[in-house]
């Protein structure tokens, strides 16, 4: 029998998240972010968080809500453009920021979940990203040593999931969610649709349930679009 991991909602899912912890938050821009848990955390009063997330939302949505409340002490991200409050807090020194190349961020999360303590990558060689890191040459090309990332809690968002924690993502809302699910000591998955055991075919599962400890069906998804771009009908 599959192990049932269903919880009642964001409150039960986020139980145990405390000030000062390190959290991984899935999503790329506003696409595939765990909106429900983020809203819950924004109202929780928890602070001093280190958040590992590719972006930091926008001023009034996603992780931008936690930034506005000064709940985040440090961000580990690859891209912070289009978020004025983030840029302001970073340039003024109120917020500690570790900017790392996007591919290295993804691989560091994957490595953290896969039991690989570190790896070499060419990304960032010769730039300030390489400062203080071991350099080694492979096939005549210099690489830098990047370490794995893990988190006290990883919070991910999926399209569908089942009580065993198996997840299916939709389109580009997948992004960082699968690697972060692997790298959380406790991984919380919020899904748009929680389906009964057996409803997902084993072949279609993107993230196997072993990586997920708590799962619930979220409600009231806004799914905001950051850059609405369309073409005219001819």
């Amino acid at each position, binding site marked *: 029998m599959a192990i049932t991991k269903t919880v009642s909602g964001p409150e039960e899912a986020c139980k145990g998240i405390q000030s000062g912890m390190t959290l991984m938050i899935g999503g790329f821009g506003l696409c595939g972010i765990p909106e429900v848990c983020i809203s819950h955390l924004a109202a929780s009063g928890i602070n001093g968080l280190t958040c590992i997330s590719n972006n930091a939302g926008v001023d009034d949505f996603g992780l931008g809500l936690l930034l506005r409340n000064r709940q985040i002490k440090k961000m580990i991200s690859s891209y912070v453009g289009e978020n004025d409050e983030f840029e302001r807090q970073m*340039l003024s020194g109120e917020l500690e920021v570790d900017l790392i190349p996007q591919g290295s961020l993804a691989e560091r999360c994957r490595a953290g979940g896969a039991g690989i303590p570190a790896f070499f990558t060419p990304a960032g*060689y010769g730039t300030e990203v390489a400062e203080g890191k071991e350099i080694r040459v492979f096939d005549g090309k210099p690489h830098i040593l990047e370490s794995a990332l893990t988190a006290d809690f990883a919070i991910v968002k999926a399209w569908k999931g089942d009580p065993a924690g198996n997840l299916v993502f939709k389109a580009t809302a997948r992004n960082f969610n699968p690697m972060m699910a692997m790298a959380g000591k406790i991984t919380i998955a919020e899904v748009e649709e929680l389906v009964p055991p057996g409803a997902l075919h084993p072949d279609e599962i993107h993230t196997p349930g072993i990586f997920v400890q708590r799962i619930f069906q979220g409600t009231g998804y806004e799914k905001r679009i950051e850059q609405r771009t369309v073409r005219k009908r001819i």
Partner: protein
Amino acid sequence: MALDKNGIAKRIAQELKHGYYVNLGIGIPTLVANFIPPGIEVEFQSENGVLGMGPFPYEGEEDPDLINAGKQTITTMPGAAFFDSATSFAMIRGRHVQLTVLGAMEVDQNGDIANWKIPGKMVKGMGGAMDLVASAENIIVAMLHTNKVGESKILRKCTLPLTGVGCVKKVVTDLAALEIIDGRFYLLERAPGVSVEEIVAKTEGDLVVPDVVPEMIL
């Protein structure tokens, strides 16, 4: 006449070859997809996790779960595929993507590029650019030749924090197409109506000018 953004994109599109997987950066590079030469098949990769990117959706058909790396709503072409960020950068780092086109604030004659930070003023972050430039075999930079006050951005040595070193092969600006060989810029082509003298005057880095510099055919 200096090229506009579409002109730069049109010139870069001439570098596309049949069967290429191509990653297009934000800004001018995105426009390259509008000028694919007839008769060739290419697929566009976006590093947030899609291969086979199509045009922007018709109004009312936007899907918040389907965006490109610039966070713009997009569509997919038949045969498209979605994947996670680690797999996406495996494609990039593993050199499965044949061509990368990206923008820059500065490039220099060693092939160094800077495009992610102006200390104390602006920090956007490198996003996927450092991974892309460190691994791509073929990188074309799309940029303006000079900044707003007319200073060259085609330099002897970059002054801003670098995105990558020794990686840029080709640069297409509003004035010229340049190649970087052995630590020098070579003038390949000039934009229609732009003189060699103007390009020389607006290029700070070492520039090799052949006897005949053809005009771009757009």
